[in-house]
């Protein structure tokens, strides 16, 4: 069983110490092209925002405070936490060509540039203006974001999962265990190891005597 831990170590992605996170996913071809293993750059200064203070999630409506599209509101599509980046849909775009070949110049598409966490602000759903937001606890004990100006709770937005699965429409495949079977509790605590219990259940009787060994 310890082999599984060894294999897990080998499979983990190793990034160099001052790795610069970009728009591409680390380990992808584009990222390997941009950041080859011998590349050494000065690290980027990133403001250390604690996990508790992070307000913005994928699917939120936020307003841009500064930049080319200042004052516009948009939906958050991607968050890159390592650089405190927020990518909005269709806003703060520059243009680039895609599908270039030797003779063809390619099609021009607008591609979004990331914005910093400090350059966007959450929008209050009631009056659709940017507000300061605080994390507070409800009566039930749920941790929610509360707009400071109006006092309205901003719920966590729905965002489709990256693997494209919609939990409500899921149908179990042939190799999937059903929900009831997976949640069924069959554990009865008793003073036996897994080995002993399984041997009893399978009717295996160990008649071999263990040879005396010295431990040192």
């Amino acid at each position, binding site marked *: 069983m310890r082999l599984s831990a060894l294999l897990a170590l080998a499979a983990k992605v190793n990034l160099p110490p001052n790795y610069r996170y970009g728009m591409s996913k680390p380990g992808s071809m584009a990222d390997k092209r941009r950041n080859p293993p011998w590349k050494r750059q000065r690290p980027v200064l990133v403001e250390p925002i604690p996990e508790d203070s992070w307000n913005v999630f994928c699917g939120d409506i936020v307003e841009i405070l500064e930049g080319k599209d200042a004052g516009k509101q948009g939906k958050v599509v991607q968050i890159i936490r390592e650089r405190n980046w927020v990518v909005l849909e269709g806003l703060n775009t520059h243009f680039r060509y895609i599908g270039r070949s030797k003779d063809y110049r390619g099609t021009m598409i607008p591609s979004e540039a990331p914005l910093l966490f400090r350059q966007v602000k959450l929008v209050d759903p009631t009056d659709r203006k940017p507000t300061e937001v605080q994390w507070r606890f409800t009566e039930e004990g749920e941790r929610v974001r509360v707009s400071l100006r109006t006092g309205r709770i901003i719920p966590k937005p729905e965002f489709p999962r990256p693997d494209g699965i919609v939990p409500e429409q899921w149908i179990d*495949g042939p190799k999937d265990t059903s929900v009831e079977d*997976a949640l069924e509790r069959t554990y009865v605590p008793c003073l036996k*190891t897994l080995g002993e219990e399984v041997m009893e259940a399978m009717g295996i009787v160990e008649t071999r005597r263990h040879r005396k060994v010295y431990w040192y």
Partner: protein
Amino acid sequence: MAAGRLITVCRGFATALKGPGRFTFSLLNKIRANINPFHQYKLIHTTLSRKGLEEFFDDPKNWGAETVKSGAAWTHEQLRCKSNEDLHKLWYVLLKERNMLLTLEQEAKRQRLPMPSPERLEKVTESMDALDKVVQERDDALRLLQTGQEYPRPGDWRKDIFGHIIWYKYKQWPIPWYLNKRYTKKKYFTMPFVDKFVRLRLEKYLRSETKKKNLKRRKEKILQRKFPHMSAEAQN
């Protein structure tokens, strides 16, 4: 077209299996006869199958597919609710699935094609690691209750010849230590002339710790200069 080549290889494998005849392990059958197959596992995965090697391959319906649908991995909480027999059976189900996915991965590499749905392998690996962790927890709890020992394998803090204090893990030997030539040749003590080097090593370690602390302080100062509102928020 590219996927079709993978199908032909899989078919080739299957026909090769059926050709020379089935081989069954008699001992394995004895153990299999005692297990009651679980009602929730479909027939392809019950242990009463006699054609062993077909389990290294996926359901023939999925051969040549670009993606295969799969559910989520088993979580720690779900596994903690299961009895030891359930976990034992689940381990082997997951193991066979993992072997099948690894075979598929290797075959895809050989054919230089993308593996259909590689996240299945990650999910199975995650489930098996979670299962291992749960079994370890139960074992640790029992051992602590019955004997009070923290670790499954006995060990000791010892000094080696270089002055390092190491956790020496005991080994199993057929003869006592005073008769064991290989064991007595290894020295688990430090001679006095090594003390000087121990002190030098300690100084080096302290120097590196101070350097790390100073570096951290310098980095903090730079961050404060660049993000002045950070300290105001930290106070709030």
